[in-house]
């Protein structure tokens, strides 16, 4: 099973994703430079976090124009699992692979902190092994993670079960207090209509080893590995 970690100028969680996929999950993992187009040799595609192009102009805006986006789009169309984490989520949104928009946190501050997420659906490759309603403890680290969608889109997302995670209290209640950044309806992650492309602001790769404080992030990687293995 082969995993790709896409690297753009300014990606900086690329090493962390690589580390988890390769050394924790034991997958055959490769960094792929953004100028490459062909991702057909991979089974799992990860768009990692960071500050591609410095987050200048708009997060993800310049990265979406890289050649690698063609490859990602093509493999996504074939139904392969693709995940965008943090800046990766922003890139996939800008690139039109995922719906909505991400704007500045309502506090107008960068926030690095563990948060709690309620799993809203098990029906994606990355949450197939996580029962619906389960609360995960996973850190966030972003300045622009405030999820926005116009009302009709929001309704569509809910109707189609496309909301993957919502910020919640440790007990699983979705409250405004548990919302770190002002995201609409506490949305922390969504998937596309076909369900194989997932984007999320929290960083599962930061909590996949016991010594780092939580192993909840590992569940996402285990899910996708099992999904690909069939």
């Amino acid at each position: 099973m082969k995993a790709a970690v896409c690297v753009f100028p300014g990606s900086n969680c690329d090493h962390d994703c690589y580390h988890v996929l390769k050394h924790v999950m034991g997958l055959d993992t490769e960094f792929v430079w953004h100028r490459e187009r062909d991702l057909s040799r991979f089974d799992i595609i990860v768009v990692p976090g960071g500050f591609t192009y410095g987050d200048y102009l708009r997060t993800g805006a310049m990265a979406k124009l890289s050649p690698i986006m063609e490859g990602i789009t093509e493999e996504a169309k074939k139904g392969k699992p693709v995940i965008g984490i943090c800046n990766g989520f922003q890139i996939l949104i800008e690139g039109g692979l995922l719906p909505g928009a991400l704007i500045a946190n309502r506090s107008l501050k960068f926030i690095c902190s563990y948060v709690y997420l309620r799993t809203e659906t098990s029906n994606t490759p990355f949450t197939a092994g996580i029962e619906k309603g389960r609360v995960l403890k996973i850190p966030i680290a972003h300045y622009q993670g405030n999820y926005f969608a116009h009302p009709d889109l929001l309704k569509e997302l809910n109707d189609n079960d496309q909301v993957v995670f919502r910020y919640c209290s440790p007990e699983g209640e979705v409250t405004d207090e548990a919302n770190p950044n002002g995201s609409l309806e506490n949305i922390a992650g969504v998937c596309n209509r076909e369900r194989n492309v997932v984007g999320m602001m929290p960083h599962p790769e930061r909590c996949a080893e016991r010594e780092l404080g939580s192993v909840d992030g590992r569940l996402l990687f285990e899910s996708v590995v099992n999904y690909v293995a069939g």
Partner: protein
Amino acid sequence: MKAHVYVTMRRGVLEPQGRAVQKSLENLGYTQVKGVRIGKFIEVELDGVSRQEAENILEEICRKLLANPVIEDFRFEIVEE
């Protein structure tokens, strides 16, 4: 040739920066300020193109890069030939 591009947030998008600025102005006593919306002002310099070509390029790069149609509107003007 010089052009100015204006990128503004679309109505209906809660724009946290504008809100924060307005709030601080209120706290400073500027209660006359009823609304603040923060967008982008982009100066672009182009070389060796006709006005028509410039307009086409500007339209394209606004759509492709400078603005995000989900949340933003744009307009541009050529200010110097």
